[in-house]
């Protein structure tokens, strides 16, 4: 039976909880209620209150307590109810967790799970893509899976990682994307991108929900004889510059795509990486398709205009392919 993206995360969490008694969950309404999105439904019954810690509405305490417990040898997996509230625990993440190892050699093996992304008419506070607040913070790892396979494999790796990992799960994918997962246990390494589709004419480099938009656009453009390669970053920090550059070298044209807003987005880091590393191989400008620089609007026609989609990608891709 195919497994949803949400179910995949759930399975990954479950397996790691079974495997390692130091792993515990902490967050708001994650126990009896099973979490706002029901990712942890059934965990309290199985693992008990000791390992499934319901908290008051206190994102800073959730992250802070995760740090403290992880310093002492546990592995905390904290849930932000929506990634939009991660800003309430921001100092703990970027100043405490991110810097402990560098400052005094103290590992903080914790994970912050944060349901993010738009397309669900959540408005400005239930739709954000906060990854860039963290990609610019050395000491953190940032993961953003696009598929159930990766979601499961990466949450498992994140839990086993000895550094703090931010795990952005896209709400829009939770129940929309399904696939058959291997029976046998597996993990997906943090820091390795994946070629989601091979192509020769142009590379789209993207991550998260936009991988599906890219694949959709690629499919449609194949009919126009434009063969697009889609690189799914999977991990944003540390960035797999090798795979990104290899794809750019191969196709010589790059379109950067993200759901996050434009200025200061991931596309910038990718553009800088490409121009400093594979400049000589490029046959056209690096272009971006992103959300515009606004908060995420609420009303469906506005949000639709806000989000990148296959049409917007195809327009830019056609232009670039012809360049």
């Amino acid at each position, binding site marked *: 039976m195919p497994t949803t993206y949400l179910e995949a995360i759930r399975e990954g969490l479950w397996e790691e909880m079974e495997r390692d008694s130091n792993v515990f969950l902490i967050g708001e*309404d994650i126990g009896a*209620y099973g979490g706002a999105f029901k990712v942890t439904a059934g965990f309290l019954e199985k693992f008990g209150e000791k390992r499934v810690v319901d908290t008051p509405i206190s994102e800073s305490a959730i992250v802070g307590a995760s740090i403290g417990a992880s310093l002492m040898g546990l592995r905390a997996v904290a849930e932000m109810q929506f990634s939009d509230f991660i800003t309430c625990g921001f100092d703990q993440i970027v100043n405490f967790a991110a810097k402990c190892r560098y400052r005094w050699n103290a590992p903080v093996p914790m994970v912050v799970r944060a349901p993010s992304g738009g397309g669900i008419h*959540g408005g400005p506070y239930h739709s954000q893509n906060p990854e860039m607040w963290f990609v610019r913070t050395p000491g953190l790892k940032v993961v953003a899976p696009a598929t159930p396979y990766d979601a499961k494999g990466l949450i498992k790796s994140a839990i086993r990682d000895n550094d703090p990992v931010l795990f952005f799960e896209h709400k829009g994918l939770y129940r929309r994307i399904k696939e058959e997962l291997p029976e046998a246990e597996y993990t997906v390494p943090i820091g390795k991108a994946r070629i989601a589709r091979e192509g020769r004419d142009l590379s789209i480099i993207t991550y998260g929900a936009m991988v599906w938009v890219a694949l959709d656009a690629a499919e449609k453009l194949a009919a126009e004889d434009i063969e697009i390669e889609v690189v799914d970053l999977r991990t944003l920090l540390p960035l797999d510059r090798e795979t990104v550059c290899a794809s750019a070298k191969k196709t010589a044209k790059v379109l950067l795509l993200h759901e996050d807003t434009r200025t200061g987005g991931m596309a910038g880091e990718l553009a800088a990486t490409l121009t400093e590393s594979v400049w000589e191989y490029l046959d056209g400008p690096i272009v971006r398709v992103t959300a515009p620089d606004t908060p995420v*609007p609420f*009303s469906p026609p506005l949000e639709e205009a806000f989000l990148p989609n296959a049409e917007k990608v195809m327009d830019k891709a056609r232009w670039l392919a012809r360049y």
Partner: protein
Amino acid sequence: MGAAELTIPHTALEGGEPAQAARQCLYYMSLMREVEDRIERKLYRQGKIVGGVYVGRGQEAISVGTALLAAPGDVLFPSHRDMGVLLIRGVTAGQILAQYMGRVGGVTRGKDGNMHMGDLKLNVVSIISAMAACVPVAAGAALALRYQGKNNVVLCYFGDGATSRGDWHEGLNFAAVQKLPVVFICNNNQYAYSTPISRQMSCANVADRGPAYGIPAEIVDGNDILAVQEAGKRAMEHARAGKGPYLIECKTFRMTGHSANDAADYVPKNLWDEWAKLDPITRLEVRMRDKGWGTQAEFDQLRARVKAEVDEAVAWAEQSPYPDPATLLDDVYENL
């Protein structure tokens, strides 16, 4: 008839006859109930509502009772179950419904989430989703009122769960140190989402936190609108007199799930029945009958009138268009 005419203009309670005041309370509580019922039980199920739905069923006495006491120059910070505040300040039911449907006729022209509504002309500030973030902002608004030499106060609303947040602490502490004219109004409905109060705090009452800021705090029956108003008057007098902030804890109950798609199985069954008996609208009607301030026939009439108003408001909202996608980029900055 346009939506703007659908609501009674705001009249200060002070000075009015008690009967008249009670009728006003009943009207706004009934209107809030009817608008929210319509949203949660009809329009949401019909797929006409955009986004999640959070209502204040059973808690109407709190926002209605206190907001009716406010002067036009007082500044109100409603939270997500305080629709009464908006109605009383002059936001129409039609605008609210349009907001919930993502229409351009909504208070925020389709930009902001459905229960996020504010209008500076009405001295109502829109919340952000993060619980308690409005608390320090309310303190700042109070600072401005004093700075400007106005004899106005701020009413800041939040739930029990919000009191766990750092912003709540920083905001109350700052307001207390600065002796700012803010009335903090907590609806303690016993739950934050699925989390019962016992897992949110280990003091018995939110009011027990008042002494941590050296400010007066009182507990009131949040389902008794007249009691809420008595407390509200004391609090606002205190604040208006320059004596600093005041904390009112209104004990109440959320007669619904956290949101429209939460069955709230975690709530012990008996609580629903117990609290149903304490419904603030029914209680006010009983009281009014007892005091001779109204008859059942009048109440029925009011209900019918409210229903008709909301019917019209729904119709108005439904004819309001969706926003033009061309407005997507507007208003990020003043001039860009």
